[in-house]
């Protein structure tokens, strides 16, 4: 278990820096012991929320956050450290000089109703950054991601051409250096590398590397003009298959604020990919022009963009139009936004499958905080995608609303606080083409009540309910109840009970009689928290 190196490193740091602790040293943390009891029935592959609940007792939480002295701080947070589904984050920082970060997590995915066909992903990531001078920042990253387990075809009864198991390793690393002058001129040089190996199919093995540079240059004579230029070159290859790609990008952004309320922005993006195997080259070019103007609490924004994708078979051009009005009350009592964007593409040589396309999206959003206790809001958005040449059209309507109320009442004996919140979301997605149509309508309701009684007893009850209708017919719900009692200020006991339900009423189309799932899970924990403040 490689996670233990985090513990060892933490201990070493603690021991090393303890001698330098001073009066500014502050720590807070907690440790929790407990576990879960799970009773489930039905198709285990349909409720992702329960995939990583594992029975057994152990350290469910270890949290430490604080500083040794004025400059050195440490953060560690770990979940389920000695049972499956473990996760940890580590962050050690010497303010303004160095920072070491690490993260680990693992997750299980279940593919079949019995739960016996599954795969686990594990991810180790570490990063070290140094700031030897105020104008220089150097960093290095390394990430290893592995996947092991079963692989299944889809639909479930077909044979997968991708094999029946996972045994892959993805290694990624990066080093970069960023520098900046007092006048605001800055730049970054970076080198990225990637190596992917598939022990079960060497054809997938892949190596790649990219060198990139970024320059950030204020206008030489004009204070309100800024230039940002980026460029990168890279190579990606599949050694077994003898395939090689060469890639390059160039980006430019110029931002000009001729006077305070107005700002103009121009962006250019160019990309080229050369495929040595097929001798094909793809170029992409983008030009974007945007302007925004501020008047009192409102911002008016408008933009136009022109793009081209050019490869050996086709040229597709795009025109983008966008506009928005945003209003933000200075005291954040309300905010709103109306936005519309449109994107039209033209297949110049009539070679692509979709041919010409038309996209349009409109949105209205309003958020309000009429008092300190209340906040309410809503949003309506409509999105259409049309492909007239193939007679297909997709339209999605989404609406959402929320309300939250916070109550707090203080007396000498303590504070009683509660929060009530409710969210409602609706979505209607339709898809039509010349020979068929598909429609799905979904509604999602979530509500919660949280009560805190004098920081001694806290209780939370929540419900999530999802209903999908139309060409699908699915109901899903999660009920949750939690009670936490604190005693002697530092100790607490927590009980949490969740009920999961899933029903697919069109089970005949799926996997026989396995279209339902129900689970009852109880967590019991005791914790100890401390703080030196």
């Amino acid at each position, binding site marked *: 278990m490689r996670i233990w190196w985090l513990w060892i490193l933490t201990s070493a740091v603690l021991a090393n820096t303890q001698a330098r602790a001073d009066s500014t040293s*502050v720590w807070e943390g907690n440790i929790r012991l407990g576990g879960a009891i799970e009773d489930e029935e039905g198709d285990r592959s349909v409720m992702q929320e329960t995939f990583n609940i594992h029975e057994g007792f152990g350290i469910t939480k270890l949290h430490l956050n604080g*500083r040794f002295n004025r*400059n050195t701080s440490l*953060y560690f947070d770990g979940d389920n450290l000695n049972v499956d589904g473990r*996760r940890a*984050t580590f*962050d050690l920082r010497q*303010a303004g000089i160095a920072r070491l970060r690490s993260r680990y997590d693992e*997750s299980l995915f279940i593919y079949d109703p019995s739960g016996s066909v599954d795969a686990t992903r594990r991810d180790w990531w570490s990063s070290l950054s140094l700031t030897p001078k*105020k104008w220089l*920042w150097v960093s290095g990253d390394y990430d290893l*991601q592995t996947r092991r387990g079963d692989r299944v*075809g889809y*639909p479930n009864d077909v044979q997968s*051409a991708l094999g029946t198991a996972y045994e*892959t390793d993805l290694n990624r690393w990066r080093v970069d250096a*960023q520098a900046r002058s007092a006048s*605001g001129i800055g730049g*970054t040089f*970076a080198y*990225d590398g990637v190596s992917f190996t598939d022990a079960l199919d060497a054809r997938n093995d892949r190596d*790649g590397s*990219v060198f*990139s540079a970024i320059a*950030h240059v204020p206008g030489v004579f*004009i204070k309100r*003009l800024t*230039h*940002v230029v980026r460029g990168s070159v*890279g190579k*990606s290859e599949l050694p077994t*298959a003898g*395939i090689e790609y060469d*890639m*390059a990008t160039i*980006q430019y*952004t110029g*931002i000009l604020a001729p006077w305070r309320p107005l700002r103009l922005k121009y*962006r250019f993006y*160019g990309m080229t990919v050369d495929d040595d*195997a097929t001798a094909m080259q793809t*170029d992409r070019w983008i030009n974007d022009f945007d302007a925004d103007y*501020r008047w009192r609490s409102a911002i008016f924004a408008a933009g136009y963009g022109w793009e081209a*994708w*050019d490869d050996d078979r086709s*040229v597709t051009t795009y025109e983008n139009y966008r506009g928005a009005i*945003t209003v933000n009350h200075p005291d954040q009592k309300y905010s709103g936004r109306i936005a519309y964007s449109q994107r039209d593409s033209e297949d110049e040589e009539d070679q692509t*499958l979709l041919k010409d396309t038309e996209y349009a999206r409109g949105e209205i959003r309003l958020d309000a905080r009429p008092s300190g206790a209340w906040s309410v809001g809503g949003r309506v958005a409509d999105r259409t995608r049309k492909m007239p040449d193939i007679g*297909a059209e997709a339209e999605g309507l989404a609406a959402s609303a929320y309300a939250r109320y916070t109550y707090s009442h203080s007396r000498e004996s303590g504070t009683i606080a509660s929060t009530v919140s409710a*969210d409602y979301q609706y979505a209607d997605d339709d*898809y039509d*083409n010349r*020979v*068929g149509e598909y429609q799905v309508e979904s509604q*999602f309701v979530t509500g919660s009540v949280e009560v805190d009684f004098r920081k001694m007893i806290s209780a939370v009850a929540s419900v999530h309910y999802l209903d999908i209708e139309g060409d*699908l017919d*699915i109901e*899903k719900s999660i009920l949750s109840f939690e009670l936490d009692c604190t005693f002697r200020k530092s100790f607490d006991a927590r009980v949490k009970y969740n009920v999961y339900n*899933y029903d697919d009423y069109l089970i005949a*189309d799926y996997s026989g009689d396995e279209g339902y799932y129900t689970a009852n899970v109880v967590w019991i924990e005791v914790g100890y928290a401390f703080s030196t403040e």
Partner: protein
Amino acid sequence: MGSVRRILILVFLAAIGAVSTAFMFQATPPSEPSTLTDETCMDCHEDVAHALIGTAHDRAGNKVSCLGCHAGAATEAHVDDPDLKPVNPGRIRADSLTAVCTTCHEDAHALNLYERDPHENADLACAACHSVHAGTHVGLLVDEEPALCFSCHAGKKADFTMPTHHPVIEGVVKCSECHTSVAQSAKQHVVTGPSETCVQCHAGFAGPYPFEHQAAVDYSTEQGGCLNCHAPHGSPNPRLLVQPYQPPDYALCSQCHAVPGHQSNINHGTQWAGVPCSDCHVDVHGSYDNQKLLDPSLSAQGCFAVGCHTP
């Protein structure tokens, strides 16, 4: 095709030249030197300075100062009349705020915000997610992910409760791991392949393949590339599919290949009605063997014989 490129390069160069020369000779008036020091601030706000101890904004290292963020005429006036509000980076316009923060934090994340991030276009900037004086989470965030993101993007929360979804609420994946414009890295600016966001984790589908599935590499549209077939947040269909992959129509594939029941496509007779597309077109993400993404073993079965299917 070459002429398109030449025209665009000329437009690009002309735009840079026009913008640069148009304002070249505008002089910037020198600013008045300030007499304020941090000690002036500390006379009244020592508690604020104390709260910053141990953070990167602690004055002890002399790398930052109160006036590094709060300098300006309003602050000078505030010293004379405390009822007047000083310069508050949390309340001024996003591009100015970003400029304040990028005095030190001139990294790719800040540049993204400055250049093209929709947050900045909505007049949100660093202070919308980070709080220098009251941030209690790593990175001085005002809350942890995904709660921080959901506080504005409430409509996305339901996506992550769909029958299949990326495990964001479960804490396995963070919003910022995909939405790299807010991630603490410059990876967004580096081309690592046509589907760079998704293949950071799903590397097995990254290719490159000699025979790509065009839909998978077409990132020219708002929902292009992987999103032609997969809903990235969550979906009522298995495998995050945007349309069901079920008989008889296999609507997922019929989005572009209008062959429900296979009657509508001259290459597929009714004898194949109801048969999953991937029974033959097995390498849907890209093939090492043939342009139609067909199973190589079909050759051994005689399907590729002259007069029948040619890969």
